[in-house]
C-alpha cells in the first residue's frame, strides 16, 4: 500500500492520461471521409460542366458560372427533354398530393389508435421502402394483368403510359409520406383533440378543426418528401411505364437514355438540374418541417 502525505495527490492513483485528441481525430476522419465522398461527387459533376480552358481567353468567375448554367440547361432546348421535364414536374406534383391525401389518414390511424394487427399494418406500410424498386415495377405490371387490373385497363390505359409513371412513383413515395405524417401526429399533444371533443366537437370536427391545422407543417414536409422521392424514381418506372420518348420519359429516364447512347454531357446536365431540385427540397424540409420531422420521417 502506498502512503501519501495528507493534502497531496498520489499520481499513480490517477487514471492514465486519456488520448481525447486521438479519439476526436478518429471521429473526424471517419465522418469526414463520407462527407468528402458526397461533396466530391457533386464537385466532380460541376467540374464536368465547367467550360474547357481551350476556349482561349480566361473567364472570370461570373462568366464561368453563366457558361456552366448555360451548359446545364442546354439539353432543355431539345423538345424530348422538355417533355420529360414537364412530365416529371406534373407527375411528381400529382404523386405528392395523392401521397399526402393517403398518408394523413394512415399516419393518424397508426398514431392514435390501438387495435389488433396494428403491427402488421405498420409492417405492410414499410414494404415499399424496403422492396427493390425493380420488383415494385414488375409487381405493378403483374397486378394489372390480373382480372381486376385488366378491368381497370379497359377503361383507362395505365401500363406503358403516363398514369403508370404516377402509380409507380406513388407506390414508393406514399410510404415515406405515411412515416412523416405518423411522426407529425405522434409529436402532437392528443389532449387538444380531447379538449375539443369536450367542447362539443365530434371526432371528425376535432380532427378537422384542431388536429389537422396543427399538422400543416408536417403535411408540407410529407408532400415535399414524396415529391423529391417521386422525382428520383426510376426502377419501377423503367419496368412498369417503359422509356418511350414523348410518352413516359421523365428526367431519370432521360439521364438513362442519354447515358446509354454515350451523351455524357446531356446526362450530367440533366443530373445537375435534379441536384438543384434536391437542394431545394432539402431547404424546404429543414426550414419548414423542422429537424424533428425530417429525422422522424427517416427513423420514425
Amino acid at each position, binding site marked *: 500500500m502506498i502512503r501519501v502525505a495528507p493534502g497531496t495527490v498520489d499520481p499513480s492513483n490517477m487514471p492514465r492520461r486519456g488520448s481525447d485528441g486521438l479519439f476526436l481525430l478518429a471521429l473526424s476522419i471517419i465522418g469526414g471521409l463520407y462527407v468528402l465522398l458526397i461533396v466530391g461527387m457533386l464537385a466532380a459533376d460541376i467540374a464536368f460542366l465547367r467550360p474547357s480552358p481551350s476556349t482561349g481567353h480566361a473567364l472570370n468567375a461570373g462568366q464561368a458560372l453563366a457558361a456552366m448554367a448555360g451548359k446545364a440547361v442546354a439539353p432543355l432546348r431539345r423538345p424530348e427533354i422538355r417533355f420529360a421535364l414537364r412530365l416529371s414536374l406534373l407527375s411528381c406534383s400529382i404523386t405528392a398530393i395523392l401521397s399526402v391525401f393517403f398518408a394523413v389518414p394512415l399516419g393518424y390511424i397508426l398514431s392514435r389508435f390501438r387495435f389488433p394487427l396494428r403491427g402488421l399494418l405498420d409492417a405492410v406500410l414499410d414494404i415499399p421502402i424496403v422492396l427493390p424498386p425493380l420488383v415494385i415495377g414488375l409487381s405493378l405490371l403483374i397486378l394489372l394483368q390480373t382480372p381486376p387490373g385488366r378491368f381497370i385497363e379497359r377503361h383507362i390505359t395505365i401500363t406503358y403510359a403516363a398514369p403508370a409513371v404516377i402509380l409507380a412513383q406513388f407506390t414508393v413515395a406514399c410510404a415515406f409520406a405515411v412515416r412523416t405524417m405518423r411522426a407529425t401526429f405522434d409529436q402532437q399533444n392528443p389532449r387538444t383533440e380531447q379538449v375539443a371533443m369536450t*367542447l362539443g366537437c365530434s371526432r371528425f370536427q376535432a380532427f378537422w378543426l384542431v388536429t389537422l391545422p396543427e399538422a400543416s407543417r408536417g403535411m408540407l414536409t410529407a408532400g415535399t418528401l414524396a415529391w423529391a422521392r417521386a422525382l428520383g424514381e426510376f426502377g419501377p418506372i423503367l419496368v412498369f411505364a417503359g422509356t418511350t420518348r414523348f410518352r413516359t420519359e421523365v428526367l431519370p429516364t432521360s439521364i438513362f437514355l442519354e447515358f446509354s447512347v454515350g451523351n455524357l454531357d446531356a446526362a450530367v446536365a440533366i443530373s445537375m438540374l435534379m441536384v438543384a431540385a434536391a437542394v431545394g427540397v432539402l431547404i424546404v424540409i429543414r426550414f419548414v418541417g423542422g429537424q424533428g420531422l425530417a429525422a422522424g420521417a427517416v427513423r420514425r
Partner: protein
Amino acid sequence: MIRVNGLSLRAGAFRLDDLSFEVPAGGHAVLMGRTGSGKTTILEAICGLHRLAAGTIQLMGRDVTRLKPAQRGIGYVPQDRALFGTMSVRENLAFALRIRRWPRRLIEARVRELADLLCLGELLDRTPAGLSGGESQRVALGRALAARPGVLLLDEPLSALDDQSRSQMHDLLKEVRRHTNVVTLHVTHHIEDARQLADQVLLLENGAVKCIAVDESLPSK
C-alpha cells in the same frame, strides 16, 4: 351536481374499483390524492374520454354514462392546458360557441364577457405560444366556461404557477363561481387550494374516495 356511482376503471395494470361520490349543485369539490392514484383518470372518465368498466355518472341530474364527451355539457381544463396552438386567444375562447353555431354577434359578446371576467382583454389577438403560465391557464379556463357548462372539471389548474399568480387564480376561481354557480371538481395536491376554494374535500386513497370536511386535518402533501 356530479354523482358518480360504483365507478370502475382500467388503464393497463392500473385499476380503480367501485368508487362513489357526489358533489352537490353549486359546490366546489377538491379531489386530492397521491401522484398516480388515478385522479386524472377519474376526471377523464367524467369527461367521457375514458371507458368505464362499470358504474354510472350523472351530471346535473342527467345520466351521461353512455354519452359522448360533446354531449355532456362540461368544461374541462387539463393539466397541460392544451390550448389550440393554431388559433388566437379569441378563437380559443370562441371555439365551443363556433361549434354550437352561435350567431357571430353573440359569440363576440360572450368572448368580451369572458375576457373581462378573466382579465384577457389585452391578449385576445395573441397566440397561445407567447403566453405566460397564468395567462394560458386563464385562457384554458375561459375556453372551458364559454358555452356555460353545468360542470367544470379542473386538473391541477394551479400547479405550474408561482405563489402570486396562484393567489390571483384563487380569487379568480371564487369570482367565476360567484358569476356562474358552476359545479366544480378540482384535482389538486395543494392543501392551500382546498382551504381557499373547496367546500368539500374528496380524498382518493387506496382506491377509495373518502369525503372529509375542509377543516379536518388534511393530509400533508
